[in-house]
């Protein structure tokens, strides 16, 4: 595993990959995502990607969430 993957975004993860939320690049989106349980420090896993490549489904804080790639690109991972 490479140690320095700074600026890695959720939208760049492949199916099955796991990441930890570092911060959000969009304030408005961050509020909505946090309400849905996506918090800094929370572990997320990409479960699947929709047949046309968008949206994606992730598991976070005990349940599954689907979000569009554009929305996923506002989540930066550690």
């Amino acid at each position, binding site marked *: 595993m490479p140690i320095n993957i700074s600026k890695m975004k959720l939208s760049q993860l492949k199916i099955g990959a796991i990441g930890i939320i570092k911060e959000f690049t969009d*304030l*408005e989106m*961050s*509020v*909505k*995502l*946090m*309400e*849905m*349980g996506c*918090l800094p420090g929370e572990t997320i896993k990409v*479960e*699947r990607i*929709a*047949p*046309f*490549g*968008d*949206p994606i*489904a992730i*598991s976070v*804080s*005990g*349940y*599954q*969430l*689907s*979000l*569009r790639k554009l*929305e996923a690109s506002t989540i930066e991972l550690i």
Partner: protein
Amino acid sequence: MKDRLRVALVGNPNTGKSTIFNALTGLNQKVGNFPGVTVDKKIGFSKLADNTNLEVIDLPGTYSLYPKSADETIVFEVLSDKNNPSYPDLVLMVVDATSLKRNLLLYTQIADLGLPIIIALNMMDLAVKSNMDINVDSLAQRLNVPVVPIAARKTQGIEELKKAIQYRSNQPFQTPTIDIELIAPDLIKSIATELNLDNPYVALQIAHQYQNIRYLTKVQINQIEAFEKQYDFHSQKSQAAETIARYNFINDVLLDTVKYNSAALEENISNKIDHYLTHKIWGFLIFIAILFAIFQSIFAWSEYPMYLIETVFVWLAQIGHQYLPEGALTNLLIDGVIAGLSGVMVFIPQIALLFAFISVLEDTGYMSRVTFMMDRLMRKVGLNGKSVVPLIGGLACAVPSIMSTRTIENWKERIITIMVTPLVSCSARLPIYTLLISLVVPKRYVLGIINLQGLALMSLYVMSIIAAILVAWVMKGIIRSKAKGYFIMELPVYRMPRWNNVGITMFESVKTFVTQAGKVIIAVSIVLWVLASYGPSNRFEKIDEKYNSATLQQKYSSIEIGRLKASEKLENSYAGVLGKSIEPGIKPLGFDWKIGIALITSFAAREVFVGTMATLYSVDGDATKMESVREKMAGAKNAQTGLPVFTVASAFSLMMFYAFAMQCMSTMAVVYRETKNIKWPLFQFAYMLVLAYVASFVVYQLLK
């Protein structure tokens, strides 16, 4: 004894809120409206063991008090305004035990509003299954509220819940969650003083939402705006800070109360199912197969009940004609009201079935997967992944399909879906298509296997779906909306459908349809009946005189005279006059005044076409005898030119008209009900009429 205890049911979506609502109140429910908004207000009634009358209000499911849709705004309005007629005595907070952390966010917000709360900790059975160890007593102690563990799907814990409501405290004793005043101390103080509030969190929420809260006055709104400028308040930053503080509190609570022993089992099964159901190839094949099965069943299973309903109404009409005194009032009652009612009731089986299927798809969690799969495609034309279901349902009937668009949160995407759904070829168009196709398309096989008539019919269906998608794409550019589309959506784990919920959904949707759309349909049927039964001045008397004359009496049998008379009367009725008056307008489409009458009468419902044709071409009033109607129509000649009325050109032109025109009062009534704005059904009617006219014109002029 207290007269009535009002309980507000609050919780995240997919937490079993409606199951608990149904379990508490049974069929003793009614759907009303929150004044001034388009949100359905579901109220149910029940009695506690001590004879207290319970009134339960089911508030829209939400993840947070900060609303993402108009529906969700109502939650804060009801819970924060003591003058609101729905202001509850007690909040029943439904919490999904399997996803405690996210669910408790809403709890902490509601708790800070200062209302007495009881927590219904739902899905305890699933939490246990997934090896979560929740210490209910210590959770209740930490929050200092009653926590009732339940499994609503298995109806476990409902009695305990009722007991907890009975022995409630009338004071809010819950532990404070976060230090609210720390977030915006000066602003909160100013707003609380200005609005005379005793709760700092209500003041903070108002600071965020004041522009959308309807109980504030203009002066108050301006004052709050001034305060926010003065104290340099940033709504989103404050919201983010608040949310993080709340999760800190929640994490602290959960640390002592919940132990996760191992990975969730239930979710793994769900994942395995999803592997196939959202698969690139299998996913779509399964989806198409499911739709096909639903479409088939709606047709197959509703056929017999629809026939039964029709038979009952025919029987009623016969009885009426037999026993009621003859006269205009009897005719109005039987040919106007009963005929109109029968037109409404006959849709009940299809509506009930479509809603049952949709509710099963939603209840199992499959619907959100369809949305997930289709979102990318549908977004391109201004729709949402969730638009797929109403569009497909439109093949059966647009009325329940438009009702089912409520699942689409984004206003613009929902309006576009509503606007294009009636373009999809519904079952009422089928008899018209089959009649006209059989009239002008030869029953021949091309290449040995393709039936020309079948091909024509299929092309009409395919065309209708393409039209819906194209129109959606055009509207995407026309309709303006500030609301940003989001697709942050929970994918709930797969579950078995709750059959009594399915039953209640069926019952409620039918009830709504009959009461809401029914009124309009009956009114229009009566108007149409009057238009077709009466004519200007003394024209009808002259017709009566003419047919009473001896020469005609000898020439024709009495049955024939009846037919001829009916036909001539229709021609001279207000409807007939109307048909003649629009003839110049529809001539370029290849229609004569008789088709004009059919177009006018089938404004209420397309099915009327065949019946009108039957009367116009003086066949027996029995519209089910398609053979005879067709023969007469095939032989119909234009009085001026002597050429046949129904040619390939005029028949296809007519089919185009029926394909695109909004000739369905039920749909217009339901669009009005769903959008709560007369502008939308009128706009829809206008654009579809233009589309129909242009399509008919082009087809007629090309084929002529």
